[in-house]
């Protein structure tokens, strides 16, 4: 994700669809949650089932035979790690609400493959929780879109898109016709009155269509965000990294269509006290098998909701306590980095690349260095930026939740 203001480290898990006009107020609320350790935004992985087979999927390699996945526990199909049942999910949603969750993101797998999705939405509605769906859009048939629209607590849907053409998109999903079905679903949602945000995942295979994707969204009047980060998979495999854009593509995008998204000119790095994002403070995620993570991108389990009440995990798990206690000095690669002010600090990428929450993913580092270089090139004063330790007190306060939409 490209933050509009790179001083605001974030991971995208506190992004809220459909409320762009109230972004400042939402940021205030996110900051309150961060400061008071309230799990305000929770991503709930309702299922690992999916009807497409994206080459970059972070769950597991969907081209692997199911038996092999089950053997390694990659899809949660082992007896030791059964997926949360509908009853467990319904109970969990109540626990999340009791703990202070207001924004519930239902994801997957493909969330629309869950047979009891509407029961989950009803539960959230009855508990006054706002819900957004993260979906590939292909299952948004007319009846489904209309039924979703009747939920008064549905904020909207974030729909992933992987190209401006069927060739590129379907090549990534490995399902012929998925591009058209995604667009059909998106248009049905809008026609039904549901807010939609498109999420462009830029990869080696579709980078050449980035500008066309952005133009397509603009022409159809959809807000969108652009995400360049592909991570290793949660099952420990890294075949997904084959989809990462290459350095020449990245530079071409940053000098071209993505240039307006980068903050111009010199900028100080963020203050050390505001280095961490909202993970384990105002955000968390729960896997389809009940593992509680600091965010959906970081499969570092703080506990399982089958073994402990969610509130207990949230309050006292050693993993979350560790994350909350981290200071800039605990990030050995990041602390001295001169590009820190231009970095997304993507913890998911770091964790999946190194197994260490405080590590660094070389791709993210390279992206930050390039963003920094371009910022300096565009600055009227082309002298080098200040050192990372000289950040003034007047640097922007931490304000999670900044939309990445141009």
């Amino acid at each position: 994700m490209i933050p509009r203001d790179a001083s605001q480290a974030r991971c995208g898990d506190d992004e809220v669809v459909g409320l762009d006009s109230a972004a400042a107020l939402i940021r205030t609320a996110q900051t309150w949650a961060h400061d008071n350790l309230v799990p305000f935004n929770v991503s709930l992985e309702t299922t690992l089932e999916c009807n497409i087979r994206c080459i970059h999927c972070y769950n597991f390699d969907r081209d692997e035979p199911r038996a092999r996945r089950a053997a390694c526990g990659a899809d949660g199909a082992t007896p030791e790690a059964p997926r949360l049942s509908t009853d467990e999910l319904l109970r969990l949603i109540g626990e999340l609400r009791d703990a202070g969750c207001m924004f519930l993101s239902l994801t997957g797998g493909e969330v629309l493959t869950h047979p009891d999705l509407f029961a989950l939405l009803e539960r959230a509605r009855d508990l006054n929780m706002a819900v957004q769906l993260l979906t590939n859009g292909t299952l948004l048939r007319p009846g489904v879109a209309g039924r979703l629209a009747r939920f008064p607590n549905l904020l909207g849907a974030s729909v992933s898109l992987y190209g401006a053409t069927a060739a590129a998109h379907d090549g990534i999903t490995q399902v012929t016709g998925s591009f058209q079905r995604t667009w059909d679903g998106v248009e049905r949602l809008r026609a039904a009155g549901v807010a939609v945000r498109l999420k462009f995942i830029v990869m080696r295979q579709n980078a050449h269509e980035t500008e066309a994707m952005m133009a397509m969204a603009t022409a159809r009047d959809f807000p969108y965000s652009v995400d360049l980060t592909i991570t290793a998979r949660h099952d420990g495999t890294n075949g997904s990294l084959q989809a990462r854009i290459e350095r020449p593509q990245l530079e071409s995008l940053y000098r071209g269509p993505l240039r307006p998204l980068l903050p111009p000119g010199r900028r100080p790095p963020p203050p050390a006290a505001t280095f961490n994002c909202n993970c384990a403070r105002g955000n968390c995620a729960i896997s389809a098998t009940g593992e509680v993570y600091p965010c959906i991108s970081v499969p570092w389990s703080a506990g399982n909701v089958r073994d402990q009440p969610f509130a207990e995990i949230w309050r006292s798990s050693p993993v979350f306590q560790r994350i909350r206690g981290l200071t800039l000095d605990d990030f050995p690669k990041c602390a001295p980095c001169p590009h820190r002010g231009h970095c997304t600090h993507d913890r998911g990428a770091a964790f999946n690349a190194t197994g260490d929450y405080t590590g660094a993913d070389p791709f993210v580092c390279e992206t930050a260095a390039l963003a920094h270089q371009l910022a300096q090139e565009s600055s009227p004063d082309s002298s080098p930026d200040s050192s990372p330790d000289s950040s003034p007190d007047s640097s922007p306060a931490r304000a999670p939740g900044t939309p990445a939409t141009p």
Partner: protein
Amino acid sequence: MTDQRAVRRIGSLPFQKMNEETLVVDPKTREVHLLNATASRVWELLARPQTVAELVGELGREFEAPEDTLRADVTALLGDLASKGLIDATDWQRDER
């Protein structure tokens, strides 16, 4: 808004208490509202249908304020909440039938 007419908050609206304030989200209008401490207390009370008189009576027990002042403030607040579509009387009346 009259003393006799009962209103209640729209039951399905997402909201969250944030210390003394309350954040209310209306996905249909895509608006977000931040209620101050007094409005938050009224919002809590409006989980059940309440008349102005009932609200004034309850707030009078909790806050040291003249009844006339409370009545004026509550009436103004309910008008504001109604204009934003956050409270409703019709649904309650229909539900009660």
